[in-house]
């Protein structure tokens, strides 16, 4: 009995199922991949030599990095001000804006990519509009070039940049800015010296997230780019499907991983503190060199004080117009960004009701023909059903395993916790195509290629990561003393968990489950590698459709998929916001009495 209790007290056991799955489906194969790339057992860098010896490979690599860097940079440039304006907005407006950012984030990637094909194509909305008003005489080449790749990638990645930025910015104490202003800092100085350095961690995680996703996510560039816009990940995926040169695949995968590693290393160090240290050092050496300059500056500063005071007073009364203008510009900017994020979805939805034989905007008439064609076609409904089945299985497996792991992690020492958490999160923090290759190898060994259980395992390693992140966040806010309180009232470990811990972390668990389902339901990169020929999930079917023939049915599918995030948001709302204590009507009357 006591031994059993001791064993139960070792929280690390709770992470065993998660690490078991992770190791078998991802950890061991990726090590084997590394060894293969190093020509094991001979161990040489011959493969890398061969890889870099080919000019075509280097071109591909440079192109991959270039596209990823540019897309990330655009995301920062658009995302930072957007996040700032969202945080600065009133509480209610902020909620609305966040939901507007979340909707595209939760929408099927393929549906969004498809939307851009429709909008930017030769007969697409933009060209048609420009032709109609006579600005151009023949359609512009907007699709299948670098421009469309960037538009599509930024559209996919922007929410991933904005969300971490917002979460960090919300944590910055507003009184710090007020304090800076009270010390005479002008608005920009206050922003630059106080707010910006504090927001750098958000920039860092946003950049990491977006850049690494760009490296490994080849769907959007492959769908929207031309032949000249191929990325290394596209090349790897093609290799798996065609020649299957394992050495070349392994080598390219680790080259991609190395690029991600370099960025992680560069940004992994704490940017803000390094920045501070450098600045301090600079100032001391600078002061030593010109010792009198400081005194002079102080003297001048003192002379200027009355003028400055006068200017401040003037500004106090004058600033209204300026502030008004800034606000207008900010509002316009946010509206622009939000339309960019939401517009494509809306267009596809409207077009899906078109009555013509092909997609057009505005639709010539209203018809449900494409929806009928979706529900009437067994290959579409079959794919949807497969996706739902797999999604549910993934959700159940990863929610249980991930929650156990999060509970175990929350009880280990902080040092061990961060190492283990990082390990669990690898499948969602390294380039997707690399994960895909590793999972592919694992499932080949297990004989699970082309089976539903294989796909469930493949999806679960990522989904577990999402569950762990969300449940851990909930547990961080969970007061461990409540468990102690329960124990002091004679509740054993099991009743304590069932009656106290579980109900209080349930919103986090359900939130994790939603994200696990979304992850599985939308996953296409790994699935396309491991599905073999027998299984067609909905994203796979859509992907095929986008690549080969544009069957307008996909518009109907996309619109249906765009309704899902609304459902998700309602579900998450009910789980998280409603989980807060309800106000009992009798309480108010009791107050008066």
């Amino acid at each position, binding site marked *: 009995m006591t031994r059993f209790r001791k064993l139960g007290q070792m929280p690390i056991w709770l992470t065993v199922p998660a690490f078991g799955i992770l190791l078998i489906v991802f950890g061991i194969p990726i090590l084997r991949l590394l060894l293969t790339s190093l020509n094991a057992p001979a161990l040489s860098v011959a493969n890398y030599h061969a890889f870099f010896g080919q000019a075509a490979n280097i071109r591909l690599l440079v192109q991959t990095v270039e596209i990823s860097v540019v897309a990330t940079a655009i995301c920062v440039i658009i995302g930072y001000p957007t996040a700032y304006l969202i945080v600065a907005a009133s509480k209610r407006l902020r909620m609305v804006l966040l939901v507007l950012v979340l909707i595209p984030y939760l929408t099927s990637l393929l549906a969004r990519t498809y939307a851009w094909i429709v909008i930017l194509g030769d007969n697409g909305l933009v060209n048609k509009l420009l032709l109609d008003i006579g600005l151009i005489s023949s359609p512009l080449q907007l699709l299948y070039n670098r421009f469309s790749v960037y538009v599509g990638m930024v559209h996919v990645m922007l929410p991933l940049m904005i969300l971490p930025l917002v979460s960090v910015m919300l944590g910055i104490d507003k009184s710090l800015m007020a304090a800076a202003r009270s010390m005479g800092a002008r608005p920009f100085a206050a922003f630059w010296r106080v707010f910006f350095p504090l927001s750098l961690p958000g920039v860092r995680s946003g950049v990491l997230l977006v850049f690494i996703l760009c490296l490994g996510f080849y769907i959007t560039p492959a769908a929207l780019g031309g032949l000249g816009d191929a990325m290394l990940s596209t090349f790897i995926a093609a290799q798996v499907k065609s020649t299957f040169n394992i050495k070349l695949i392994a080598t390219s995968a680790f080259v991609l991983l190395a690029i991600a590693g370099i960025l992680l290393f560069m940004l992994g160090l704490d940017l803000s503190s390094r920045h501070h240290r450098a600045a301090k050092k600079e100032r001391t050496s600078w002061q030593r060199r010109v010792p009198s300059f400081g005194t002079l500056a102080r003297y001048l500063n003192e002379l200027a004080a009355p003028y400055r005071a006068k200017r401040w007073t003037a500004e106090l009364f004058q600033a209204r117009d300026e502030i008004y203008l800034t606000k207008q510009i900010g509002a316009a900017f946010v509206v622009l960004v939000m339309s960019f994020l939401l517009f494509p979805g809306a267009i596809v939805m409207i077009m899906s009701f078109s009555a013509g034989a092909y997609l057009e905007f505005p639709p010539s008439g209203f018809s449900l023909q494409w929806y009928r064609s979706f529900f009437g076609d067994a290959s579409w409904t079959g794919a949807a059903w497969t996706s739902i089945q797999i999604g549910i299985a993934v959700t159940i497996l990863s929610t249980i395993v991930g929650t156990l792991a999060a509970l175990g992690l929350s009880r280990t020492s902080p040092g061990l916790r961060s190492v283990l958490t990082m390990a669990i999160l690898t499948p969602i923090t390294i380039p997707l195509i690399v994960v895909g290759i590793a999972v592919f190898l694992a499932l080949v060994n297990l004989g699970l290629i082309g089976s539903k259980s294989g796909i469930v395992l493949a999806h679960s390693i990522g989904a577990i990561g999402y569950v762990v992140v969300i449940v851990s966040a909930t547990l961080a806010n969970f007061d461990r003393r*409540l468990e102690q309180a*329960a124990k002091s009232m*004679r509740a054993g470990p099991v009743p304590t968990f069932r009656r106290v811990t579980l109900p209080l972390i349930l919103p986090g668990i359900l939130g994790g489950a939603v994200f696990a389902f979304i992850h599985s339901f939308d996953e296409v990169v790994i699935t396309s590698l491991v599905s073999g020929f027998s299984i067609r999930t909905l994203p796979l079917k859509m992907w095929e459709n986008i690549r080969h023939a544009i069957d307008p049915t996909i518009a109907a599918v996309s619109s249906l998929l765009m309704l899902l995030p609304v459902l998700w948001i309602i579900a998450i709302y009910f789980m998280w916001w409603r989980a807060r204590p309800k106000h009992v009507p009798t309480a108010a009357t009791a107050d008066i009495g």
Partner: protein
Amino acid sequence: MLVKIPLPAPLAEGETLEERLTSAEIEFRNVTKRYGEVAAVKDFSLTVRRGEFLTILGPSGSGKTTALMLLAGFASPSEGEILIAGKSVAAVPSYRRDQGIVFQNYALFPHLTVSRNLEFPLEMRGVKAHERSKRVERMLERVHLSDFRQRMPSQLSGGQQQRVALARALIADPPILLLDEPLGALDRNLREQMQGEIKSLHKEFGKTTICVTHDQEEALTLSDRIVVMRDGRIEQTDTPEALYDRPATRFVANFLGEANILDDADFKVESDNELPAGTVAMIRPERICIADQAARMRADAQQRQAVTGTVVDMIYAGPLRKYHVRVGSGVLITRQHVGSGQKIFQPGDEVRLEWLRSDLRFVRA
């Protein structure tokens, strides 16, 4: 009203009533708790009698909460043992220890109503539903919260939450009650009110109570005995009055109330006998009279000592005035009751400070 008194267990063979009433309920035997290199509690030995209200008092980081957590079973001692009712509890997990605990921030279950919170300990002990609701009703009435039974903890004020926490700790009738900084989260007025509430609950239920606090006033008001802790060790254990009047060490003298330490650095202490090695003289501010320099010494001059000095500061604090008086190179603090008709001094005034020789105390430095 009919008062139901739970019958005590029959006396064991050879046990006398006297023994039963004064026997040790809780005993710490040379308990040490280390976290890595740091010892939070060092060689802690303490006996708590049945029905006693004992307070562990100390600054933050002195190990007082650790001692409580060891007793509650949320941590286990690195050395030594803890006995409850004469039996070692080393192998008893926290959920079998039968203690009621009021946590620092109450730890009320946020997802359960007030009455469900109170029911929890009864449910865990397998009490039947109708019996549970009866006992919850009775307890709610006792703490004047009957109107709030359907509220969630977040809808209660601080004082109400505190009363729910107390009720929840007491409802299952555990023999031992542990209070961890029970009034720390309340404002001053409420704190005084709740002190009274805790005192009356203790009188009524007679639980052996251990309270941990850093608030000296709370400790003095509530306790039968106080344990003063410093750096994981017990500094002194005594009744509130003895502790205040005869502190053993300079630390206790300073921590419990204000103290004028008359050490050689600032004051030339003349004594009839040599001071015992390692001790200094101490006097409480309220034992020092402040008077005009010209005033004559009272008749019983034999028993008195006097010094002269200059007022450097006068602080008005409601019922009393506090003077800081420079004497030689040191400063003595004294108090004067407002409305006692005595002369009021201002900074710069030359004054004479007088005290009874018998009011001097000698404490370990």
